[in-house]
Structure formats: C-alpha cells, structure tokens
C-alpha cells in the first residue's frame, strides 16, 4: 500500500505489516514506525511549550499560591478559620481528601488492573494516568494533615519508640489505617510509575538535544541499556507490582470508606461503603483521566496516540462504574427504610428533602443521570461532549463526598445539637488551591517526562496490523 514514509529504509518494514484485521482498528493511528513513536514523544520534550500550556500553567500556579496562603492562615490562626462547629467537625477538608484519593484510583486501575486483563489500549494513557494518580494522592495527603488542630504534631500518628514510655498509636483507628494505606499506596504507585518510566527516560536520554535534560535523564534512567536480561526481570517485577497494586487500590478506598463505615453516625455507619466508595473512586478517576487526556491530546497534538477509541473505552468504564454508584444510591435509600431504624430513615429523608437537598440532587444528577448518556455511541465519540460530561461527573463526585459527610453529621442523634455548616473563604481557597497544585504538577509532568509510554506503545504498535 502506498503510504508517505519517512525513513526510506523502513519501506520493507511497512510492506510486511499491512492492515489485516477486519474487526479491530489499530490502537495507534497514522501508521507509525518505532522511530516515529520515539520522535513524536521525545520531540514533545524538546519543543518549547505552547501558549495553551503557559496559560493553563499560570492559572493553576496562581490558584496553588492562593491555596498555600490560605493554608498558612489556617495553620497560624486555627481551624476556627473554617466554617466547622461543635456538631460538624469535618466538611470541606475530608471531602477534598476523599475526592482526591478517589481521583487517584483511575491511574492505578488503568496501569495495574487493565494490565492484568491485558487491555492493550491502556498503553497510550497509562503513563499520564499514573502521573495523575501520584499527584492526586499528594493533593489528598495534604488534607488529613492540615485538618488537624495541631498539624505540627501530625507525626504522632506514627508508631515510633519514644520517651513517653513508649506511648504507641491506636491501631484501631481508621485514621491510622488511612495513614498506612495512603503512604503505601503513594509509595507503590510512585515506584510503579517510575519503573515504567525508566526505559523511556533512557530513550529520552539518547534523543534529547539539551545537555541539561540529558544529564537529568541520564541520572534517572539508571543506566538503562535495553538488555534482555533486564527486560525479563523488569517485566516480572512489573507484573508483581501490578498484582500488588490491584488489591492495594481496592483496599485504599475501602479503608478510606472505613473512616465513615466504622463510626456510629447514621448515614456513615453502613456496610456498603467499601464497594460503593471504590466504584465511585474509579468513576470519578476515569472522568478526570478523560478530562486530562482530552486536554493533553489537544495541548500536545497526540490525537494519533490518544484516539477517540481510547476515549470511548473510558466512557464505557465510566458508564459501568457510574451505574454501580447509582445502584449504591438506591441501595442506601432502600436500606435506610428497610432497616426500620428511625435515625437511618431520618438521615435519608433529611438528605433528600433537608436543608442540603440541593447538594444531594446535584450529586444525583451528575453521577446517576449524566453518565447514562454514554449509552449512545454518538456521545461516546464526541470529544467536546465527553469533555463536558466528564467534568460534570467530577462535580457530582465531589458533592457525593460532601453530602455523605455533612448531611450525616449536621443532624444526628440528639436534636439539641443539630447545626448547619457553611464553608468560609479560607476553606474554599484551600480547595481551589488543591486543584491548582494538581494541575501545576500535572502540567510540569507533561513538560518533563515522556507523556506516553513509548516502550509499551512500541510493543502494541502492530496490534491489528499483523
């Protein structure tokens, strides 16, 4: 077949790889060769950033700085700068925490679970999805620390020998579980991501023209030389990590859900929380991945690599998880009444009709109704639509956490201490700041690291071609 070819010496190569599969479309479009892949991805690193990137970056950077200032204010003045009160002890802080942890899950899901299920399409998105995970977990990790009354003593939740004879920590507390779960999750995701990065860093090292970058990549690529011995051990470990990350990602959000499920507050004390939260996490995570990927393929002109087919697949996952979440909502309501427990019933009624019903209905609309549009292929394949819907889903998922936390707390057992919660500017700024941090770091990632896992893409380059 006649194609525009770059290296003449690749002609033969092309000829021997005609498109033969009648069923499957190639994952990567544009008849790329190995060399093209390298060139496309590595050039992104050397090319100067476009206007789009700079705008996005400065906006997020400003937000981040604002967040830092608001946080400093909180730490120096006291949690009183937030809108919390004697009845509602958690609100924006833990909402943001759970939200960001949830976002993180998609990355691990794509890199680990889809890997185990041998989903080849993951290769174009897993690198940035994992980066997103790590950054999201960073954002999440901030909140449990700064929500403390005395954040400078946060290290007290570590079990270390001390001169208090030794006074340890309460391993029965879900907050301690959180600490272990999240630090483990962060560490494993980080090394997993980095491990996947090493061969590509080597490629970048051998390609880049800037001295500075070469030095940087040289150090980080750990002297990778593509030896087959290394490759074979590398793949083993990669598999092991994937196998570890899979239960890990499930455990992390289950444990986060234990913060609520193990308590006695009606609306929190619920056994469906772990699966409910995990589904929700993957749901919101994929929505965020789609948002980012659409941005990335525009910003970085990677339409050939991150194809509409990729997006469509993710839409399907979103649709599935979204439906699971909706089922959870229904179950919650059903159990609320089926339990016969007056307090449970009250919480449900209060959520649906109470002073915070606006939040509840935002949540239902964005999480239960909106994703149902993904049943239609036209929606699944229209990039602008996906972009809007994916953002809506994240709005909804943020409100889900808000509803769970605030509506359960503000009216619990004794009517005498019922109260209302309204956020202060400080809290809102801190939340925006966490988004600022997230995008700042992600945009930096786009500039510094190969956005797409070249070695993996090369591995599937001939998919549906041979």
């Amino acid at each position, binding site marked *: 077949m006649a194609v525009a070819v770059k290296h003449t010496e690749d002609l033969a190569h092309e000829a021997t790889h005609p498109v033969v599969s009648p069923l499957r479309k190639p994952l990567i479009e544009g008849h790329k060769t190995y060399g093209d892949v390298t060139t496309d991805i590595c050039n992104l690193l050397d090319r100067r950033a476009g206007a789009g990137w700079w705008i996005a970056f400065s906006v997020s950077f400003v937000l981040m700085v604002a967040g830092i200032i608001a946080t400093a204010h909180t730490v120096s003045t006291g949690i009183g700068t937030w809108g919390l009160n004697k009845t509602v002890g958690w609100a924006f802080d833990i909402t943001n925490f759970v939200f960001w942890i949830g976002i993180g899950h998609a990355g691990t899901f794509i890199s680990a679970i889809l890997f185990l299920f041998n989903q080849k399409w993951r290769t174009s998105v897993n690198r940035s999805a994992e980066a997103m995970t790590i950054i999201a977990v960073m954002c999440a990790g901030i909140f449990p620390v700064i929500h403390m009354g005395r954040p400078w003593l946060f290290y007290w939740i570590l079990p*270390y*020998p*001390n*001169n*208090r*004879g*030794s*006074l340890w920590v309460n391993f029965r507390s879900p907050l301690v579980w959180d600490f272990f779960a999240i630090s483990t999750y962060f560490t494993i995701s980080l090394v997993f991501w980095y491990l996947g990065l090493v061969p590509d860093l080597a490629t970048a090292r051998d390609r880049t023209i800037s001295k500075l970058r070469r030095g940087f990549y040289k150090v980080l690529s750990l002297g990778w030389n593509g030896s087959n011995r290394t490759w074979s051990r590398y793949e083993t470990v990669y598999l092991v990590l994937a196998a570890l990350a899979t239960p890990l990602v499930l455990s992390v959000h289950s444990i986060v859900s234990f913060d609520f499920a193990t308590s006695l507050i009606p609306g929190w004390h619920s056994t469906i929380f772990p699966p409910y939260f995990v589904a929700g996490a993957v749901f919101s995570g994929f929505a965020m991945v789609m948002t980012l990927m659409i941005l990335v393929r525009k910003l970085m002109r990677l339409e050939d690599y991150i194809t509409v087919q990729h997006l469509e697949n993710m839409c399907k996952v979103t649709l599935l998880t979204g439906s699971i979440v909706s089922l959870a909502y229904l179950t919650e309501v059903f159990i609320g009444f089926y339990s016969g427990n007056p307090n449970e019933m009250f919480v449900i009624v209060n959520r649906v009709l109470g002073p915070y019903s606006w939040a509840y209905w935002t949540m239902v609309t964005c999480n239960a109704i909106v994703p149902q549009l993904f049943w239609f292929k036209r929606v699944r394949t229209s990039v602008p639509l996906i972009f809007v819907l994916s953002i809506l889903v994240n709005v909804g998922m943020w409100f889900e956490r808000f509803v769970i936390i605030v509506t359960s707390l503000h009216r619990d057992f004794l009517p005498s201490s019922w109260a209302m919660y309204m956020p202060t500017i400080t809290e809102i700024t801190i939340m925006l700041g966490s988004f600022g941090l997230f995008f700042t770091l992600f945009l930096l990632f786009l500039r510094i690291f190969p956005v797409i896992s070249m070695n993996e893409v090369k591995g599937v380059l001939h998919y549906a071609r041979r």
Partner: protein
Amino acid sequence: MSLRTARIVSLVVTVVGAIVLLQNATFSWLGNQQGYEPVQPIAFSHKIHAGDNQISCLYCHSAAEKSRVAGIPAASVCMNCHSQIRKDSPEVQKIAAALSDNKPIQWVRVHDLPDHVAFNHSRHVSAGIKCQQCHGPVETMERVAQFDSLFMGTCVSCHRTHREVTLDKTGKPVIAKEATPKRLMASTDCSVCHH
C-alpha cells in the same frame, strides 16, 4: 561477600544500632532539662544541710507530705536555726536581710514539669518513695541539679512496675525483686497525671 555488600550491611547495622541504643536521646533531646544546674541567689548547699547535718528533707519542704507541691521554705524557717548558727555567714546575712526588708528570695526553679502534668508529692512521699528517686542524691549536691530527665517514660516505668523502690549507697534507685502490697500499686491511667 564483596566489599560493597559489606559496606551496605555495616551501614545498616550502624544506623539501626544507633537508633536502638540512643532511642532516648534520639527522641527526647528537645526541651530536656536534665542536668540543669542554675546558680541560685543564695549559695545554699544541700550537701551541708541534708548530707552532713542529716536534716530531713521534710523539715524544710514540709508541704511535700500534704500537698501536690513540696514547697520552698519561707525565710523564717531558715532563721529557726540560723538565728543561732553561723549568723555571720554572708549567705545567711542575705536571708536575714530578706526578712528584715521583707523582700522574698527569688530562687531559680530547677525541677519544672509542664503545666499539663499534675504530679502530687504527698502521694509519693506517703507511699514511701524516696525523694532521691526522682531528685537524685540531693544530699551530695553543693548546688542542686536536675538529676532525672523527668520524662513521662520515667514516671510510667515506675508506675508500671508497682514495686517498692529503695536506694543503693550511691543514691541510685533500685527496684525490688518482688511486688509490694497493694498500697503501693500505682496507676497508669492518663488522668492520674493529666487533667
């Protein structure tokens, strides 16, 4: 094994060892006043009074039996003896002066527990704990220095062992082998000291 491996192993061993050995030091140096030995306005020697002259601690620190604090004797208490003995000593003169022009002596506090710790002297004294267990061999000190770190660990370890405590000749506390009767059982409830 190769030299490199040896290095790695040794380093690990050193670090772990250091942490284990110096656990106390590693986690306790902040705000530790152990060994604090301030100069006092009057060069009062516990060695002379409690050591050489065998004056009981409780003669001057009489509150220790009845109160949470041990109390610092009023200048008048000093004069009970010093109105006769060594009237001419310059240090005693200072006390006399304090009495005459009614200016209290401002001692520098040596043992100072944080405000969130409620230590009760009377309970420990009447339980038969020797002053020296926490304050060290004061009767040998020319100028009083903080003997123990007085960290929570110190209290807890003793409260845990529920044992009679005696002092050897060097004034070091010795915990008896066998448990003592109930009257000496100590509680490790937080609220015993923190309220």
